């Protein structure tokens, strides 16, 4: 019935309808019961009255004294009295014009025909009530008995409207009570309905966002409820979390794959360049060894040599060689880096928090780790806002060396984070664009992980380097 209507309206409307229906049913039952009671009262009082009247009527009937019978029945108000003789003819009535003497009851219309049939069928000597909805009156028939024989019947007719004022009175009271109850219950119904439906509506709205909007934009807070709706909300939130994780993971995979591809490309190119480069460098040194050069040639040679050296450096930088022989990392190595970074930090008026938790040598080669520390901390110092904060912590955690570096400044977008570790990507003027590339290559070569998180103006790097595999 409500298939097209939102639950938000359907539930309260259904509740209201249920309340209305209930009060209608209760009201009808109450009115019906009062009606029955009124009817019984009427019947009882009629029989009492009729029994008194029949005592006088017996004498009048036996003496054929119409006038005495008439005077007995005369002042009846709205009631109709009819005395039927043993041949079912009207002996006397208090309304002689309407119920003429001697006429047969059945000839007075269908209402009386039905009454007559009922009287004929009623063989016992007890009074009875004759009522039909279509009739103008209802009738109480009281047998007039003399010496155990029914000599006549006294019929007392009441206008059916006799109930109406009572019933109207009861109906209006029931109606008023119902209205008061409804006035209380319907707002409660709406409140309960909304309370039930609102979480569903929120959930449905959040669900419809899945797929069309970024997962981070989906705002949904499950209610602290343990019922079915509460559980549904919790499940939905769990699903969103899982989706987010999956999406993150996919993003990371893409980034690392891209970086791996770039790495392979860079290494290939570097090798191809290094071979002819070595040749050219050899040629220059050979040329120099065989006799003195003229000043012009010497100047050219120096230019060539310098250019080739720069190419070599660049290529070498691309070809990050982490596995250099070096001693194990000591706390002093970390402190050395601090010294180097501190001067730059002071120049910018930064607050540098350096948390070195190493208390002895770790089975990690010091040089590449120092380079990672150096790169990350310098990067942070450069990225930090003027008079900002830079925090660095180094600690061994569960077989890992964990390095955390963070700085305040601007928030880096997710898109930028994806490209952060690519070579020659300049984020600042003056940088080579290779610092983070090298860091990334070193970490990967040690089988470690690097995480970036940027939020609310704070960008953090976290590096995990496995200790044992590094040995």
């Amino acid at each position, binding site marked *: 019935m409500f298939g097209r209507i939102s639950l938000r309206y359907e539930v309260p409307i259904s509740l209201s309808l249920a309340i209305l229906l209930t009060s209608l049913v209760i009201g009808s039952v109450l009115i019906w019961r009062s009606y029955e009671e009124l009817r019984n009262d009427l019947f009882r009082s009629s029989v009492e009255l009729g029994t008194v009247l029949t005592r006088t009527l017996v004498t009048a009937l036996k003496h*054929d*004294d*119409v*006038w005495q019978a*008439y005077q007995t029945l005369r002042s009846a108000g709205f009631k109709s009295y009819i005395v039927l003789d043993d041949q079912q003819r009207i002996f*006397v009535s208090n309304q*002689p*014009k309407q119920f*003429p*003497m*001697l006429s047969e009851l059945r000839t007075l219309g269908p209402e009386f025909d039905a009454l007559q049939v009922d009287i004929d069928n009623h063989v016992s000597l007890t009074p009875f009530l004759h009522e039909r909805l279509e009739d103008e009156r209802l009738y109480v028939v009281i047998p007039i008995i003399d010496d155990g024989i029914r000599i006549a019947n006294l019929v007392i007719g009441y206008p059916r409207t006799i109930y109406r004022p009572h019933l109207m009175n009861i109906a209006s009271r029931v109606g008023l009570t119902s209205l008061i109850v409804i006035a209380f219950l319907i707002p409660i119904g709406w409140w309960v309905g909304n309370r039930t439906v609102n979480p569903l509506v929120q959930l449905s709205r959040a669900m419809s966002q899945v797929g069309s909007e970024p997962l981070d934009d989906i705002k949904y807070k499950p209610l602290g409820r343990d019922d079915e709706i509460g559980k549904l909300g919790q499940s939905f939130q769990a699903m969103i979390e899982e989706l987010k994780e999956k999406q993150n993971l996919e993003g990371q995979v893409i980034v690392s794959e891209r970086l791996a591809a770039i790495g392979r490309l860079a290494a290939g190119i570097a090798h191809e360049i290094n071979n002819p480069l070595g040749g050219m460098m050899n040629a220059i040194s050979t040329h120099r060894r065989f006799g003195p050069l003229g000043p012009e040639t010497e100047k050219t040679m120096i230019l060539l040599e310098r250019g080739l050296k720069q190419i070599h450096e660049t290529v070498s930088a691309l070809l990050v060689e982490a596995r250099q022989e070096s001693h194990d990392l000591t706390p002093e190595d970390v402190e050395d880096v601090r010294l180097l970074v501190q001067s730059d930090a002071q120049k910018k008026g930064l607050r540098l928090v350096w948390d070195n938790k190493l208390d002895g040598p770790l089975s990690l080669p010091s040089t590449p780790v120092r380079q990672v520390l150096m790169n990350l901390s310098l990067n942070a110092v450069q990225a930090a806002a003027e008079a900002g904060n830079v925090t660095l912590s180094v600690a061994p955690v569960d077989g890992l060396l964990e390095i955390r570096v963070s700085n305040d400044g601007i928030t880096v977008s997710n898109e930028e984070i994806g490209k952060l570790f690519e070579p020659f990507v300049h984020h600042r003027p003056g940088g080579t664009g290779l610092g983070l590339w090298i860091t990334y290559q070193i970490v990967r070569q040690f089988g470690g992980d690097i995480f970036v998180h940027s939020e609310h103006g704070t960008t953090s790097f976290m590096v995990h380097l496995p200790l044992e595999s590094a040995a």
Partner: protein
Amino acid sequence: MVYSLKLHIPLLCLVLAVGTPAAVGAEQPSTLRIGLTPVFLDNKLSILRIWKRYLEIRLERPVEFVQRQTYREITDLLLARDIQTAWICGFPFVRNTRELTLLAVPLYRGQPLYRSYLIVPATDESTRNISDLRGKIFVYSDPDSNSGFLVPRVGLRRLGYNPDTFFSRTFFAWAHHDVVMAVAEGVAQGGAVDGYVWDTLQQLHPEITQRTRIVDKSRLFGFPPLVVHSALPEDEVRSLRRVMLKMQDEPDGAALLRELNLDGFIAGNTDLYDGIRKNVLYMNRAKRNVWQNQLTLRGTD
């Protein structure tokens, strides 16, 4: 009520003034018992009370009115001498002339005469005479009433109808004012009533008589008389008659007569009831009880 009280107090004083020395005297006078029938509006108790006091003062003896439902009961009481006098209909009077003596006859509209009216409900506009009421329901006042029984039955006989079967049903209302009521309320479709009662009711309660229509008025008959038992001592009859005949000459008597819608009482004579007597004879002849009843009547003549 106010009216009755006004009269009540001086009358009471008179009763005390006159009655007490009599009671102190040697003999307690016997009570005069007067039978009343509904030949007049006998349901007006206030008038009866005043009339009783009026008579007690004049007669210097206690008076008691005796009322019964039927004429027959009063007649029987009179014949049994349980009561000394009664106001009855002319019909029982003519049937019992040997035992009864005329005491006084009321004057109505200056004459000791009245009529019987044939009435129908005012809603009945078609009935022109008694013949039109064939097969209808008819109300008589009393089987011993001239105007409320004998007159319409004689009328039917004269028209050739059998009064016992002419109407589909008849009943007795036992009083003329109830006949008017029965017709007015439609219990009966026709009725015979004492014309004097109808006229008086017309003055007092026009709302009742208006609901009836007079179809026919009979010829004049002797007005219902006050009678005594023939065995009542002559001096007692004389003093009673004197009181009755003097009523119109005394202010309180005249006031009472006005209340009764009468002009006074006269001594009257039995000839006044010849009309009724003829009707009785006619009916008896018609009933083929002629011989026996003729002898009875001849004897009384």
